[in-house]
């Protein structure tokens, strides 16, 4: 591993540790984690998929909220390396999705259509249960190396810790409560993105960035700001005209 990568790795874990303060927002945390995963593992996109505990999977966070990428993450909750990984509890890779078309006949066209050629899914495990998966996507056909997979495992473990938040896991039921609450907050964020997208004429990615930038500038939890926007407790114009929000993305 190169020195530069070691330094990035150290910075990533410091950032993540800084985020894991009391009362942190789990979806904001997972968003940061996927962004850092992209930098650290030098992949083009990363996402976290969580078990809905009803036999299905749902996207929770991605390195970008770009609509096309979100669709790929949604598609891979039905078929693809992520689902295989969740079922087997093992790392699943495809160095070239086009070669693997027969393996995932529905997922591959969706991923390739969005510009991706290689994928890797790393399980998020808690004891004997797989609660989700960290997925890595590349826009070119490439084999992900052993070092990167090990780092991916470490990041997937950190994601699992983030979902459990500060609660000690005495029993399985707490994991279920936290997973379901996380999925609920994801729904609220989508509703708030819709409100901001419509009010400000923004795309969904930009709407998410406004939401997150506002939460950070005002030291509020992303989920709380999203709830206030979706319930009209705060006027979307307040966020859209906030001088503290630096235009980005």
């Amino acid at each position, binding site marked *: 591993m190169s020195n530069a990568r070691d330094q990035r790795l150290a910075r990533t874990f410091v950032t993540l540790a800084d985020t894991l303060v009391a009362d942190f927002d789990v979806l904001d945390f997972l968003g940061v984690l996927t962004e850092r995963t992209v930098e650290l593992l030098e992949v083009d996109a990363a996402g976290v998929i969580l078990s*809905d*505990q*009803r*036999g*299905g*999977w*749902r*996207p929770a966070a991605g390195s970008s909220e770009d*609509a096309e990428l*979100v*669709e790929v993450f*949604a598609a891979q*909750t*039905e078929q693809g390396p992520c689902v295989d990984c969740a079922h087997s509890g093992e790392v699943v890779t495809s160095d070239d999705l086009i070669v693997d078309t027969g393996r995932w006949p529905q997922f591959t066209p969706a991923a390739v259509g969005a510009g991706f050629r290689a994928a890797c899914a790393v399980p998020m495990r808690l004891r004997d*249960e797989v609660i989700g998966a960290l997925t890595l996507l590349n826009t070119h056909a490439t084999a992900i190396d052993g070092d990167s997979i090990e780092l991916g495992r470490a990041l997937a473990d950190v994601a699992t810790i983030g979902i459990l938040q500060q609660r000690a896991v005495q*029993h*399985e*039921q*707490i994991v*279920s*409560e*936290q*997973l*379901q*609450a*996380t*999925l*609920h*907050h*994801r*729904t*609220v964020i*989508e*509703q*708030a*993105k*819709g*409100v*901001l*997208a*419509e*009010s400000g004429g923004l795309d*969904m990615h930009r709407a998410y960035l406004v939401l997150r930038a506002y939460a950070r500038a005002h030291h509020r939890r992303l*989920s709380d700001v999203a*709830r206030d926007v*979706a*319930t*009209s407790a705060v006027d*979307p114009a307040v966020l859209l005209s906030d001088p503290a929000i630096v235009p980005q993305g």
Partner: protein
Amino acid sequence: MVQNRRQWLLDLLAADLANTPASMVALVCERCVLEVSVSGAGATVLSHLPVFGGGGEAQPSRGLVYSTNVVSAGLEDLQLTVGEGPCLDAFASGGPVLVADLAAERTRWPAFTPAACELGAAAVFSFPLQIGVARLGSLDLYRDVPGPLTRLELADALILSDVATDGVVADLDGHSTEDVSWLADPHLQVHQAAGMVQVQLGVSTDLALLRMRGYAFTRGMTLAEVAGQVVARSLRFSHDMDGQ
């Protein structure tokens, strides 16, 4: 294994409905007792939605919709009376509240716990019926002996709470849908679209969802198709749209 449970439960409920015409929420409560091995089930629905098309939005009020026995009915009443308990915590956290041993939670709910134990509850499991910020009610299960839900029982309870959520929405807008999978849809556009439509109409998220469902129903479209058009900005909702 778990994958087939949804269809299995939906088939059971369809048969129940054919045998006993009742609200879906009532049928779900009865099925919880049979499939999740609990002693009783109750559902409370928040009735704050105005009659569709009636305009204006009333303040939320709560009313018990159904309970399978007197203990469940008592537990629902109790939470309303003391203003604390698993159902209220479920709304605060956004996820279910699963308490395998209620007697151990005296400090968490000092007023609710002793009275609930007195009523005969030893374990309580509360599932919020909600679609993001749209809070519709709760499904509350209890057991007369302590013990956690197994993974399969939890999956069943979550699926049944989805069915109950869809049932409450269907009761509100009068459009029953064959397919309740939209609540577990990993494609999140339905929720983005609801946020957009609530701005277009100047209404709350739940009313926006009802309008989208109504539009889908009258045109023979799925909710996901309507949502896709809204997010793509090829469909806008207005108060004077036809078919509403």
